[in-house]
């Protein structure tokens, strides 16, 4: 670790003011001062959002028959995307909550952005359980509420657990993210020129005045929230994993799913953060705040998670063979040589082979390669869900009912539509809120000034 120490988490020469100015000028910039790339990117994203709305409208009018699903393959892109997005939505909370508890100061400049990304990813994910329903207008049947039928949901069903897990995760992530924003919103309020903008930020900042009392309460609540959010990182994807582990279909019926899904989720989450940050820090010249150190650390986390995922794959294959169950064995072999074999080997390449490059510092420090790898991992994790969900279903117990799943144009439109929605929200976020936590950066400046670069030497905590 000697080597990475050399790269600081904040380039030297920054003062409280410079930090504040640099970050707050991004959302406060006059429209004509905004980078063209923003308009280009948002334009494309917005077009995709329109495609999404068109596809979903058609879906609601005509029914899920639009998708390529069939009997036996009842779940296709709809659930694959759900699991994929929910997975991506893991990085944020992990970075902000868990790394906060571990006092990892390098989280400071990326947690805000990661949390925002988490929110948007989860928002995307949360749509799919409704979109995939045959009768989406009745989604509320899944929620326990007193009703004229005198009925409750089936609490044995993992889908019901999903409802609780996701709604909780969404709520907590949002509160956590907004909590973090409050002091910065106050800063924005103070820095904004236009009186209406001041009022807007003023309302959003809930009357934050930055008094010692405020800070005292704030810190304790923030830590509390972090503690609260941490178990959720584990629970959500464990439960999503149980959707499948609970089933008896070969390829689903496996106890390793919960941990293996969580690892996969963090894996793809970090990949997505990198995919977005690497271009952004260029675009907004944030190299000072988001340094190689950050990218390097994230790459290491990915490598670690990647290894856990790889272990998961190995165990899946081992269990398939060790079960001595002809159906399991058939399913495993079908992944190697069946109709979906290219996708399987594709995911092995992306998630296992490509990830090994991260052992090398030269790779971790080469932003271009890092960027490519992060994209590969995103793709790989999507393919993994395809294999787990659709390939397993396509050839189960009785050969007479085997049938392959082939996505339709509607599957694809909805998928890329959600990507558009995700990006559009990211761009709006960049335009409206400070993408990096200003006050925490100030703390960092303070820390580095008074306690040296490692921030480990004894001294007053950030709270006072």
């Amino acid at each position, binding site marked *: 670790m000697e080597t990475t120490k050399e790269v600081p988490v904040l380039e030297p020469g920054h003062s409280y003011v410079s930090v504040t100015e640099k970050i707050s000028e991004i959302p406060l910039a006059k429209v004509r001062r905004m980078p063209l790339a923003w308009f280009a990117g948002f334009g494309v994203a917005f077009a995709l959002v329109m495609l999404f709305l068109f596809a979903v409208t058609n879906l609601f009018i005509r029914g899920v028959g639009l998708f390529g699903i069939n009997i036996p393959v009842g779940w296709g892109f709809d659930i694959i995307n759900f699991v994929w997005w929910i997975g991506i939505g893991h990085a944020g909370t992990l970075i902000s909550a868990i790394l906060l508890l571990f006092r990892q100061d390098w989280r400071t400049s990326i947690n805000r952005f990661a949390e925002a990304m988490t929110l948007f990813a989860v928002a995307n994910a949360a749509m799919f359980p409704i979109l995939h329903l*045959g009768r989406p207008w009745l989604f509320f049947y899944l929620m326990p509420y007193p009703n004229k039928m005198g*009925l409750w949901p089936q609490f044995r069903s993992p889908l019901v657990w999903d409802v609780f897990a996701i709604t909780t995760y969404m709520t907590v992530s949002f509160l956590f993210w907004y909590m973090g924003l409050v002091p910065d919103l106050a800063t924005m309020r103070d820095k904004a020129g236009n009186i209406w903008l001041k009022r807007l930020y003023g309302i959003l900042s809930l009357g934050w005045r930055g008094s010692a009392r405020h800070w005292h309460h704030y810190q304790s609540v923030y830590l509390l929230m972090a503690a609260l959010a941490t178990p959720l990182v584990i629970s959500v994807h464990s439960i999503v994993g149980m959707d499948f582990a609970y089933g008896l279909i070969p390829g689903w019926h496996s106890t390793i799913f919960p941990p293996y899904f969580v690892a996969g989720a963090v894996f793809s989450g970090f990949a997505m953060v990198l995919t977005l940050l690497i271009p952004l820090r260029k675009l907004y010249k944030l190299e000072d705040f988001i340094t190689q150190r950050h990218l390097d650390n994230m790459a290491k986390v990915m490598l670690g998670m990647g290894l856990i995922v790889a272990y998961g794959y190995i165990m899946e294959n081992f269990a398939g063979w060790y079960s001595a169950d002809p159906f399991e064995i058939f399913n495993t072999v079908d992944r190697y040589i069946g109709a979906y074999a290219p996708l399987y080997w594709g995911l092995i390449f992306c998630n296992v082979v490509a990830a090994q490059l991260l052992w090398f510092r030269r790779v971790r420090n080469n932003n271009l390669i890092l960027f490519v790898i992060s994209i590969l991992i995103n793709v790989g994790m999507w393919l993994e869900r395809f294999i787990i969900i659709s390939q397993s279903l396509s050839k189960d117990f009785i050969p007479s009912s085997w049938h392959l799943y082939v996505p339709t144009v509607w599957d694809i439109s909805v998928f890329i539509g959600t990507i558009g929605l995700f990006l559009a929200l990211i761009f709006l976020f960049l335009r409206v809120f400070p993408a990096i936590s200003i006050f925490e950066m100030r703390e960092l400046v303070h820390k580095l000034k008074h306690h040296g670069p490692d921030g480990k030497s004894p001294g007053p905590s950030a709270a006072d």
Partner: protein
Amino acid sequence: MTIDSHEEGRPLDLASFRQQLATRKGREYWRSLNELAESEEFEEAVRQEFPRQAVLLGSLNRRDFLKVLGASLALAGLTACVPQNAGKILPYAVPPEALVPGKPVFFATAMPFGGYGQGVLAKSEMGRPIKVEGNPRHPVTQGASNLFMQASILDLYDPDRAKSVTNQGQPSTWDDFVAAVGAAAGANAGAGLRILTGTVTSPSLAEQLNAILAQFPQAKWHQYDPVGRDTVRAGAALAFNQPVDVHYRFDLADVILSLDSDFLFREPGSVKYGRDFSARRQPTQSDTPLSRLYVVESSLTLTGSNADHRLGVKPSQVEGFARALAARLGIDAGGAGGEGVPGENWLDALAADLQSAGEAALVVAGERQPAAVHMLAHAINEALGAVGNTVVYTDPVELSPVDQLASLRELASDLDGGQVDLLVILGGNPVYSAPADLSFAEAMPKAGTSVYLGMYADETAALATWHVPAAHFLEMWGDIRAVDGTVSIIQPLIEPLYGGKSPQELLAALSGQGTASGYLMLREYWQANIAGGVQPTPSAGEEQPTPSADETQPAPSAGGDFETVWQQALSDGMLPNTSLAATSAPLQVNLAALPGAAAAPNESLEVVFEPDPTIWDGEFANNAWLQELPKPLTKLTWDNAALFSPQTAEGLGLQEYDLVELSLRGRSVTAAVFIQPGQPVGVVTLSLGYGRAQGGNVLAGTGFNANAIRTSEAPWFDSGLEVRKTGGTYQLVTTRDHTSMENRNLVRSATLEEFMQHPAFAQEGEGELPSLYDPVQYPGHAWGMAINLNTCIGCNACVIACQAENNIPTVGKDQVDRSREMHWLRIDRYFKGSPESPEVFFEPVPCMHCENAPCEPVCPVEATSHSAEGLNEMTYNRCVGTRYCSNNCPYKVRRFNFYKYVDDVSEPLKALRNPDVSVRSRGVMEKCTYCVQRITAARVQAEVEGRTIQDGEIRTACQQACPTNAIVFGDINDANSQVRQLKETPLNYALLGELGTRPRTTYLAKVKNPNPAMVEQA
């Protein structure tokens, strides 16, 4: 309506507004049946039809139910799903007699099929016929049915049916027609009058025809059925010099040889044959030893796939085989002694087996084979002493047996010669179905005037001067003989929906009787014919559990003998003691005199034509149920195809779905290639009935027309077929993606010896799986099902029965291609062994109603749940459509409404629906319910009567339809129930039992009975 109203010749005043409606454009007569019921003209008609004082005959007033269909729909829709308190409720003004609103009534009638009557019991809900079952009292069907009987109910309501009389394609009226044709018929003693019918077995119709021939001596009557039995007639004529009908007793046969005969499917008596045959295929019943079936056939058929030994040969080689066998049995068959015939290695073992069976042996020749083969079969049966035991001769059931192809040929030439002034065609659609060489389509317009009685505006209707809509058999009065001769009465359950006419009514118009009532003609005919003759003896036959028609018949009025007989006949659906007695027919032929069979050169490709396994000769081409029904062996839906054996296809460099041009005798047709394991090498099979040009929206664009290359010289098979790739391909759709069992223990089977040594072979390595939980107790009833793979012949009747009973929609070719068919009950078909001559296995798969059902815990809304009696329930209206249950179902028996599949646009189809079963909307899961509506109905009845439900009282739709009793449903808690006893046999096994699902549906493993001698050979 009353008898008086008929005698006064006062027809229903519907005609006038029918005409008015007929001229209306659009898909329907009426926007809705309610509209019909409420329109003014209609009410006027009703008033005329219901004079208060009328003494209503039970058998009559039900015909009028349609008139209050508006009311009955409102009643059936009492629970219609509309906002609270919306809607009206319309009671009858004057209720029909013997009707308890909301209770079904059953009527015995008969379905004409290939000229023969199939006795059926039709279920009427508030005046709407909604289901057709076999008539338990009928000697041929015995309560069972086939897929055509089950599907016939859909034809009744088919929105595509012809809706008015047309003249030169312009809407006209029945009265105009009667006036016009009545006059034309008699021209110069009917010299130019020709009548073309199908096979006629209806006594009253025959009398009418003969009367007309007497009236117009110059007139001629021709008969033609596309799937006719000329070869059988000719064979009998050859063997006995007299017309004789041949009947088989498979229940008495120990050893059966089929010479290219598909007796389990295509014989008029197939329903009975299936039952008799399967009665001898029950290894667990020691009193009836297993019979052994050898099949020599020229394409893979149902019969062949049920054989113990099957030999696929070219159709032209069957005669050689028969001769060789005859020679082995010491019959001087003349010609070839059988050297070099295929299956030579069979002959000794087979001959020995037949001989040892003696009078319990049976040789059946196929309708496809020429007269000589039939004659040889007769000779062999004679020699074996089977005649009188397994083979029974009777006088012909047909009233005038003729060589139908010759008859049609003569008609065609007469037409060509312009000798026909008035051509009357009673059904059959000859323009489509006539052999190509007669070029009937060119000849027909040469008739001065042509009249066509048909249900659809099809190819023949298009060329006919007059097209009169034909009545569906559930709309008309008539009579017809069953294959055993029993006279069955056809009685209507509903007023003709589209003003259809029966053949009798049309002929009456022809012979100048104007618009006579079919009912009166029939009644008068039988009054004259059974006055003294038949004595009123109630016919035997099991009592069906359902309320039978006679409960709803008013007591016979004091009409003396005839009235009693007549009422009994209407109640039973047949006249007692009218089956034909066995006659002795001495074999009178010198076999040696027969010309030697001219076996076609071996390298030449041969073509086989066969009636389609689902739409027959095209008669059912517009029936969506049958179109979507996977054919038993190819599993194709919505198309036929040219079937090639894998080897032949390879030799010709053909891929599946390639389009090929089949050329024969200078004619050609393009068809898609389908590779069929078990298809004999060098034989291409193309089924009839497809490639129709006109006649409905359902049949549009399906399949390929075999009649284009079928000639009257060689109607069933021919050699010299040439196959040329056109380069194009055609998307055939089949519900099988996979033919093999992947060595999974899904269908368990053994030979008789193996079974004798290990009776429990099917259960080996299985037992109660350990569980952490105490087993769930089912104190009351515990419903279960046993499916006997030994008796299941794969005939598909159950699948259609299920579709009709449970309002199951059809989804269309495209959706089937996406594996979204909705059948609750599917029949899995697996091949085992070499692709050239594989063993075939059928396995009907309904919902297993697992006690540990994987679908139940995963449903987030408890839309699928477990009942106290062990039913796996599906509550459609709670379902939100996550499809998790289907994903988690190891049997994949759940079906999902990916779109709104139910047709709620076509008004007539609404009347078809079973009011006891919810119609499912888009986005909900559905599946087999064990016909829970029948369970509930039986329970209510039992509880009201303060008794417990009897075994056999509840029969699921599939069980009731099954001709071979392969499906048995009942209470497994009841130690004496049939299903319990079956489940206690050693053959009983659970499909995928190793998963611990504890299915309530279990199977009896298949035991085959191959000839040990031949097993050693192989």
